[in-house]
C-alpha cells in the first residue's frame, strides 16, 4: 500500500506525459521522422530488441568500468592528498576548475590515444568522474570540525582510528552526492564519446547513424535504452548509499 502511495503520483505524471506526447503527434500530424509517437518507439524497441541489448551492454560496460575506475581512483587520490592538507589545498583549486573543462571535447583525441574500441570511451568517463569524486572526498575528509579531532586526540586515538571512525563516515554524504552526479555523467560520457567513432554495435554510433538517415524511430529506441541504463546505474548508487548510510536516510525520511 505504501509503495502504491509513494510511486502512484510519479507513475501518473509519466502516463500523462506520454499521453500528451501521443496526442500532440496525432493532433498536429507531425511527421514520424521529426518526432515519432511513443507507441511507435516502443514498437521499434520490440523489433530491434536483440541488437539494442547487445549495443546497450557494450556502452553500459564503458560507463560502468569508467565510473568504477574514475570514482574509485578519485577516492583513493583524495585519501592520499588529504593526508597532507597543504598539498590538498594546492591541488584542490585545479580539481575544482576541471569541472568547467569540456572533457568530452577530448573524445576525438582519446580515440587517437586509446583506439576506437571501448578503451577511449572508458578513458573519457574516467576523466569525467575522477575530479568530482576527488573534490567531494577531499572536502569531506578534511571538513571534520576541529573539536572532533580534539576529542579523538583526548582519547589518544591513532591517525588510522581518526580516519576510519571520523573522517570517512563524515565524508560519506558528500562522496555519495558526487557518485550520484557521476553515475549520470558516466552514461552521458560513454554515449557522447561514441558519437566520435566506435563499433557499429554501440548505442552512440547507432543513434548517430540512424539519425543521419532520418531513421528516427530507431534512434529514439536506442535513446530510450540509454535512458534506462543511465537510470539503472543511478539507482544502483542510491541503493549503495542506503546500505552505507542507514543513519542518513532515517533522518531525511523519518
Amino acid at each position, binding site marked *: 500500500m505504501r509503495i502504491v502511495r509513494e510511486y502512484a503520483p510519479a507513475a501518473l505524471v509519466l502516463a500523462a506525459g506520454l499521453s500528451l506526447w501521443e496526442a500532440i503527434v496525432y493532433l498536429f500530424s507531425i511527421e514520424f521522422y521529426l518526432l515519432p509517437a511513443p507507441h511507435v518507439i516502443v514498437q521499434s524497441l520490440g523489433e530491434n530488441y536483440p541488437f539494442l541489448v547487445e549495443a546497450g551492454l557494450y556502452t553500459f560496460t564503458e560507463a560502468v568500468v569508467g565510473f568504477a575506475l574514475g570514482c574509485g581512483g578519485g577516492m583513493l587520490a583524495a585519501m592520499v592528498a588529504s593526508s597532507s592538507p597543504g598539498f590538498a589545498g594546492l591541488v584542490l583549486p585545479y580539481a575544482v576548475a576541471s569541472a568547467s573543462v569540456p572533457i568530452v571535447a577530448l573524445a576525438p583525441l582519446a580515440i587517437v590515444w586509446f583506439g576506437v574500441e571501448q578503451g577511449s570511451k572508458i578513458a573519457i568517463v574516467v576523466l569525467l568522474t575522477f575530479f568530482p569524486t576527488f573534490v567531494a572526498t577531499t572536502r569531506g575528509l578534511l571538513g571534520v570540525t576541529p573539536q572532533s579531532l580534539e576529542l579523538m586526540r*583526548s*582519547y589518544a586515538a591513532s591517525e588510522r582510528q581518526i580516519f576510519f571512525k571520523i573522517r570517512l563516515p*563524515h565524508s560519506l554524504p558528500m562522496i555519495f552526492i558526487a557518485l550520484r552526479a557521476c553515475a549520470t555523467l558516466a552514461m552521458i560520457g560513454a554515449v557522447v564519446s561514441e558519437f566520435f567513432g566506435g563499433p557499429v554495435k554501440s548505442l552512440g554510433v547507432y543513434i548517430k547513424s540512424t539519425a543521419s538517415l532520418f531513421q528516427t524511430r530507431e534512434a529514439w529506441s536506442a535513446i530510450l535504452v540509454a535512458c534506462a541504463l543511465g537510470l539503472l546505474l543511478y539507482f544502483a548508487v542510491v541503493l549503495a548509499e542506503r546500505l552505507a548510510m542507514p543513519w542518513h536516510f532515517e533522518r531525511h525520511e523519518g
Partner: protein
Amino acid sequence: MASPIIELDRVAKTFENRARATEALAAVSLSVEGGEFVSIIGPSGCGKSSLLRVVGDLVEPSAGTVRVNGKSARQARLDRDYGIVFQTPVLYEWRTVLENVELPLEVAGRPRAERLQRPRELLRLVGLDDFAGHYPWQLSGGMQQRVSIARALALNPSILLMDEPFGALDEMTRERLNQELLQVCAETAATALFVTHSIAEAVFLSSRIVVMSARPGRIDRIVTVDLPRPRGDKTRALPRFFELVTEVRQSLR
C-alpha cells in the same frame, strides 16, 4: 596535604599568526587539588579556553610547565586522564546515542564486555537510558549535551575539562544540568576545570572560581566558594550565594 592534580607554573601561550603574535596567556600559575571543581571566568578573549586546552595538551604552551597527576600533560593525555566537553555537543551523526558514548572505549580498545556495559551505565547516570538507540538529531540540545558528558566520562577520567558546556542552552535547562553535573562529579570523584561566562553558574558549581583579565590572559583573583554541599535549588536562595555572585562580578570589572 595531598599533592595537586593539576599544576600550572608560569604558563604562557602566544599564538603566532602570519602578521602578528597574539598573547593569549601570560604567566598563569594555578594548582588544583583532587576532587575540586574549579571554574574559570573572565571577559571574552581572555584566554580561558586556551588555558583549558593547554591543560588538556590540545595546544602546547609557549612557556612554563603543566603537570597533571604528576606527569606531563602529554603523558596524561596519552594515559587518557581527560574527559572533554565542548560548548557544542560534537556528537557523531552516524552513531546512535549509545554508540557515541561507546566511541572512547572503542578507541582505547577496551574489552567487549566493558564496551557493552559501561555506556549503558553512563546513559543511566545522565538520565538518557531510554534514548540509547536514538540518533543525536532526535535529541534536544540539552539532551545532546548530556550525551556528551556521558561520553566524556566513558574512560573514567580523573579530570573533566569543560569549555562552556551549557553556554548554548536556555536558563532552565542549564540550571537542571548544573545540578546533574554536581551529582556526576560527586559520584565519579573527578576533578573539574570548567570555563563559563555565567557568574551564577560558576558560584553554584565551584569550590573555587578563577577570575581572569583580558589579553594577555592572567589570573586576577581566585574566589573560594564556601557554600555548603550538597548544593541544590536552596543554595541559589542563600544570602551567601548572592554575596559571592556580587564578589565575582566586582572582580570582573
